């Protein structure tokens, strides 16, 4: 199927809807006065902002904090527009209204090339497509924290909500004092006038709720005092004294604990079970059989007085595990088949075309000239586990037809849905409390563990129960980053630059699988092409005249999910290492080679030039940053989630293994809300990527995952971590994503540095010399 056909037919099918909707005003996302009803003296001014009687601003926080700083960044937007100190913004839970759904994340998943969606140069198809999806997303109101979208999604909405609230408050003062709005100022939440009249927000809130906001203007950039500053994160004080409450820290009167043993074979089940050895142990209460929930493998759960008692009980059960009905999963066989599929599709011109440019050259050879050089290589990447620091967990209570869930979740609405479904109650009978998340990385976009916890809670006589997976259960039963293979082929012109680029990749589509698990009512009988499978390949900004970028979506049977930076996590390695191969084939400097291909994309050029200058790349100021002997540099440039990042890795070989000394990052993330947080996320994404690049692999044989805990699923620790620098290109465009963008370029930049050091080209992850 061709991409254009998909888009046009999709839009056509919605044609009648589009015409109908076009006549309706866009549904606003600020919400009305009754969106947040008055409660304990705090008065709601719209769906996001309440004012307490002491003037503290209560912000309905819909996004989950998993370390990416979203609570602070969103609070800053509100503090700025309301002219209050950041410390005077307090977060309250947002609830499940569709108002709090994520629009930007779903729009971002459309398969458009960045060139088609660039502001000021949008194609009609892109504009219509984004509009339709934004409308659908707004109507569905699915709340998800992911896709590096929290600030992108909140940027206009929260500023408008806060500015609207401010306008009501100032308007109320204006009416009360009979003074023109234009003469009133706001300082730290106090409305004042030269005459001396003043009142703080708490004193004005009730009147403000009855005052129309009038014309609302967002604060001009030149007046920002908070946005753009490295304001200290509001969640950190509780994270240095042990008081921050994660999902596993929930403690309730009468609470029990549950441990779990899934069938070791993914997709398998429990046959004959002997629970007597478990029940004989002290502190063990009961055993609960668990079927699959939202994609999980069947399991046995043991309830105990402490988690240790429950876990001991779980280990003591004797079970005959049964293999997955469709047969055992084998990762080596799957990866080999991906390679075959990619090659076969390439030869046949098959697969879904995510991007195509230029007419197919009949003959990649100019008349009478030297035959054009062709480079063709196959790249591979393995399955990866998330291994979030906080193990998988959920606390649930089922009593009196009501369900209460405490979960570190990225999708509170989907958590509510599965809790209601498992307990057999309407969603209105379910309350979801979102705790801090000890890492997410996309793992907690799934709600399998919520379904499991609720099922267990149905067996504990109304007592709350906290299900915690061991690390072994986590690594062995993840929704893995899919394995991938890609065949890349380019022909080089006389100047050494690529004239043609053909890529055929193969791997599982994540989105249809995730939707089947979490949003089954939205899934159709046929998978629609998943853009995440090809992102990082089809969306390049290099001026390569002829491109055919295709993907073959497979269904391996391995549970797959979103892993930090998703398709970019392996595709950037494939594409940026391959571009480096082309540069070396052409005998050119890899950075200059890339610059030569960046035409009409000033953002990309600026980012690459900035990293070159800061890293001291040859020709860009290397005298300032001489490279110690035995080290080499590698570069990679990658756009993802609306931002552009370039990295230069400085590496050496120590004891036969790669050692990374420094990573210089340059990025254009659009308007920077908090540069401190951006730097944190760059460091985070780099180290996350480094663990994957050096060590990450999940091997499955007989359906059983071989890796189980940190000793055999190693990750980078302090002793191996490089110095990391972050340099930001100033920008006034709307913010782009930040949380995931530092991950894709790291593996290729490192592989490119290793090539410079050793002359050995690595085309598979993890990188092994």
């Amino acid at each position, binding site marked *: 199927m061709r991409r254009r056909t998909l888009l046009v037919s999709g839009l056509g099918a919605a044609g009648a809807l589009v015409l109908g909707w076009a006549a309706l005003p866009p549904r606003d996302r600020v919400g009305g006065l009754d969106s947040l009803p008055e409660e304990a003296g705090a008065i709601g001014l719209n769906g996001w902002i309440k004012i307490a009687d002491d003037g503290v601003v209560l912000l309905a926080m819909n996004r989950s904090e998993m370390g990416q700083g979203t609570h602070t960044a969103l609070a800053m937007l509100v503090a700025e527009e309301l002219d209050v100190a950041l410390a005077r913004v307090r977060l309250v839970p947002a609830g499940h209204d569709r108002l709090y759904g994520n629009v930007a994340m779903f729009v971002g998943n459309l398969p458009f090339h960045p060139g088609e969606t660039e502001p000021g140069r949008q194609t009609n198809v892109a504009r219509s497509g984004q509009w339709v999806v934004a409308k659908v997303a707004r109507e569905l109101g699915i709340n998800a924290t992911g896709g590096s979208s929290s600030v992108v999604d909140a940027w206009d909405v929260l500023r408008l909500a806060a500015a609207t609230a401010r306008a009501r408050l100032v308007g109320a003062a204006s009416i009360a004092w009979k003074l023109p709005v234009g003469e009133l100022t706001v300082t730290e939440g106090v409305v004042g006038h030269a005459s001396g009249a003043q009142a703080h927000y708490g004193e004005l809130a009730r009147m403000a709720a009855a005052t129309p906001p009038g014309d609302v203007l967002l604060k001009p950039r030149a007046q920002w005092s908070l946005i753009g500053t490295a304001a200290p994160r509001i969640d950190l004080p509780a994270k240095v004294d042990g008081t921050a409450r994660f999902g596993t820290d929930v403690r309730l009167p009468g609470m029990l604990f549950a441990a779990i043993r899934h069938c070791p074979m993914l997709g398998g089940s429990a046959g004959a079970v002997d629970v007597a050895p478990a029940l004989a142990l002290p502190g063990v209460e009961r055993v609960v059989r668990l079927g699959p929930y939202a994609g999980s493998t069947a399991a046995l759960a043991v309830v105990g007085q402490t988690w240790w008692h429950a876990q001991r009980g779980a280990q003591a059960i004797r079970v005959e595990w049964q293999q997955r009905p469709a047969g055992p999963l084998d990762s080596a066989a799957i990866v080999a088949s991906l390679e075959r599929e990619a090659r076969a599709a390439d030869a046949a011109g098959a697969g879904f075309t995510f991007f195509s440019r230029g007419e197919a050259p009949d003959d990649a050879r100019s008349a009478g000239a030297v035959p054009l050089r062709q480079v063709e290589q196959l790249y591979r990447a393995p399955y990866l586990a998330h291994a979030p*620091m906080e193990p998988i967990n959920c606390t649930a209570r089922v009593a009196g037809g009501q369900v209460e869930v405490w979960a570190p979740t990225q999708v509170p609405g989907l958590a509510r849905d599965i809790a209601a479904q498992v307990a057999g109650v309407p969603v209105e009978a379910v309350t979801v409390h979102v705790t801090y998340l000890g890492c997410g990385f996309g793992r907690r976009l799934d709600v399998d563990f919520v379904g499991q916890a609720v099922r267990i809670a149905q067996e504990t006589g109304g007592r709350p129960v906290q299900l915690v997976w061991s690390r072994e259960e986590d690594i062995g039963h993840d929704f893995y980053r899919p394995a991938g293979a890609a065949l890349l082929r380019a022909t080089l012109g006389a100047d050494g630059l690529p004239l043609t680029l053909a890529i055929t990749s193969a791997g599982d589509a994540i989105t249809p699988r995730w939707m089947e698990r979490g949003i089954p009512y939205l899934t159709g009988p046929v998978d629609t092409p998943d853009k995440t499978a090809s992102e990082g390949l089809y969306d390049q900004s290099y001026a390569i005249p002829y491109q055919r970028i295709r993907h073959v979506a497979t269904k391996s049977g391995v549970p797959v999910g979103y892993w930090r930076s998703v398709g970019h996590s392996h595709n950037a390695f494939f594409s940026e290492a391959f571009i480096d191969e082309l540069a070396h084939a052409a005998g050119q400097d890899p950075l200059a080679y890339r610059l030569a291909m960046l035409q009409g994309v000033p953002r990309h050029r600026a980012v690459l030039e900035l990293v070159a200058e800061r890293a001291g790349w040859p020709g860009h100021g290397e005298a300032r940053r001489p490279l110690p002997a035995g080290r080499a540099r590698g570069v990679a440039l990658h756009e993802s989630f609306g931002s552009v990042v370039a990295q230069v890795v400085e590496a050496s070989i120590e004891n036969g293994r790669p050692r990374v000394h420094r990573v210089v990052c340059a990025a254009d993330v659009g308007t920077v809300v908090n540069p401190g947080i951006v730097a944190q996320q760059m460091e985070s994404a780099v180290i996350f990527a480094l663990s994957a690049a050096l060590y990450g692999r999940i091997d499955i044989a007989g359906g059983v995952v071989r890796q189980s805990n940190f000793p055999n699923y190693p*990750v980078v620790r302090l002793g191996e971590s490089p110095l990391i620098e972050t340099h930001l290109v100033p920008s006034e465009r709307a913010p782009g994503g930040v949380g995931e963008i530092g991950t894709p370029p790291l593996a290729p930049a490192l592989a490119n540095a290793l090539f410079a050091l050793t002359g050995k080209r690595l085309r598979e992850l993890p990188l092994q010399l």
Partner: protein
Amino acid sequence: MEIDVNGALRALPEALADPAMPLLYALRDLLGLTGTKFGCGVSSCGACTVHVDGVAVRSCVLPLAAITGKRVVTIEGLAPGGGRLHPVQQAWLDHQVPQCGYCQSGVLMAAAALLAKNRNPSDAEIDAAIGNVCRCGTYPRMRDAIRAAAN
């Protein structure tokens, strides 16, 4: 069974306090001191680090039987009190170290123990003492904060 935690003798419920139970679960599930975290259960990640008689120890594999008569300090007892923070906690805030924060209790306890023994650790000594896993990648800032707290 009683254990000395953060300067106070705490009684553990008789029926549940098993001498084989690792200290981590006694702290979290019996005493409600949830600041110390479970990360791996095999003493590999360090999220469970506490002090036992001043020494940094991974509590997920340390049975209650092994700490009779010893003094345990957890993250909840690290600050000197009176609203003040331990120097590593202050340095952690000054350098904006934590991201998700889940591993940080264990790292802070390891860092505090290091500085109590070694007023001015070298980079190599810091690397050796802080073997904790941080999946958010806060390592560069940990190093800076430890150096700052040492000064």
